[in-house]
């Protein structure tokens, strides 16, 4: 098992986390561990759409780029963290406490960044 997959699996064990994935901005899935509820291709496609739209919009309006986006919906939450050349996507249930998961998400992002630099 790669270190990337190991990190994602570890994050998946955190309270309220329903899945995590590492993606390139154009929607290529590097590694993932997702609940049966989520389809890999759907998560990849939708994440790519959201991230590319947000990036383009920020760039067009001279606001630079973003480092993190936290999305709350009625039945779930999603956190997108920018790594150097990829994105960490964490899907959580609606009851998940983001304050307590924040450290775990940031820790995982940190480890993934290191993995990216080593490879």
């Amino acid at each position: 098992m790669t270190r990337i997959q190991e990190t994602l699996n570890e994050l998946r064990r955190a309270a309220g986390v329903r899945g995590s994935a590492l993606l390139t901005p154009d929607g290529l899935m590097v590694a993932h561990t997702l609940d049966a509820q989520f389809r890999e291709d759907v998560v990849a496609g939708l994440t790519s759409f959201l991230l590319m739209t947000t990036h383009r919009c920020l760039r067009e309006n001279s606001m630079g780029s973003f480092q993190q986006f936290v999305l709350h919906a009625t039945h779930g939450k999603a956190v997108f963290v920018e790594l150097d050349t990829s994105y960490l996507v964490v899907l959580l249930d609606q009851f998940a406490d983001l304050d307590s998961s924040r450290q775990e998400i940031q820790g995982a992002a940190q480890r993934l960044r290191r993995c990216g630099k080593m490879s």
Partner: protein
Amino acid sequence: MNLIQRMMIRKDLKRLEQRVHDEPSPSTYVDLGQVYINLEMSDKALQAAENGLALFPDSVELEQLRSFARRTGLKARIQDLRAKMTKSPNPKGYRELATMYLDLGDHAAVQSVCEECVVRFPQDAGTWMVQAQARLADFYRDLSARAGLEAVRCLEQVLQLDSSNGKARELLGELLFRVGATRQSAACLQAARPVHGAHDADLQALLKQAQAQAPSGDDVDTLFHEVEETGVLPNPPVTRKQKAQGEEGIGKIRDALAQLAEAPGVQKAAYIRGSRALVKGEIKDGKDPFLRVVRVLAKSAQRFARRLDIGNFSKGVLDGPFGHVCLCSYGEVVAAAQCDKGAAVDRVLADLQELVAGSLYLAGMRDS
């Protein structure tokens, strides 16, 4: 429809349900709704139209599907109710039936149901009221003297049976005011004052306007015929409390937004409803990049959440070199703020949520 045809349609249905889930678009929702209608499942067709409109609120086809499904559902309910009424007629059932016909826009059927009810239950004010509403709709659409005079007669009948019916008094007062019978309108509204007290702002506003306006004549019958001949109502629609409340509502939103923009660390704040926006803070105009980013972000986050099946997007925080962009969304309403890096994001989000909830409450008050 035979068994094989039914099985084929069921198969189609499953395929379409999956397609709607995988690639939602107005046309996939319409296709699904059409199959539901063919299977006489108008409730499900209506649900499909509602779901589609939540994602594509501007779709004309989905609006048409919703309207068609609603009408089909109403027709089925009318049939059921008709069958029940044949066995045991009652005023409540007649009222319900007449209201459903009114929803369908079939005013001739409303008339026939009301007449039937009036013959059986002449003391039921509710049926006269439904009949009056149908007549009023006819009058305001065609400006036909006959419909207007019928509406007056029905409303007077309601008031005779139930003099405390404020709605009937208001409708009658307004109708008389619009055709120029301001003296009769004022007399009708003044009669309501002891019943409703001095706080009924709607009636008071109406009364004020009726008293201020000189009458076009004294004979109501002649006035209605003049309206029919000229095709013009002498007096404009009455300005009501509703409008004042709307202005007050916007004022409250503006105040809340200004308060938010003044909070420590908050640079800009915006309240967006559809194509309109209220802005506070360091924003020059509607072309501000922040506004554009908020619109795009809210829309794409909503699409992401819906398609991933995690419900509707409600709030979000975007962090970047610009600080934080906090958003809160419900339906077509989005409130957002741009804050500095050290700002209390949770507090800002809570304020935005309160702003959206408050504005929806005010909108609900206006609509009710």
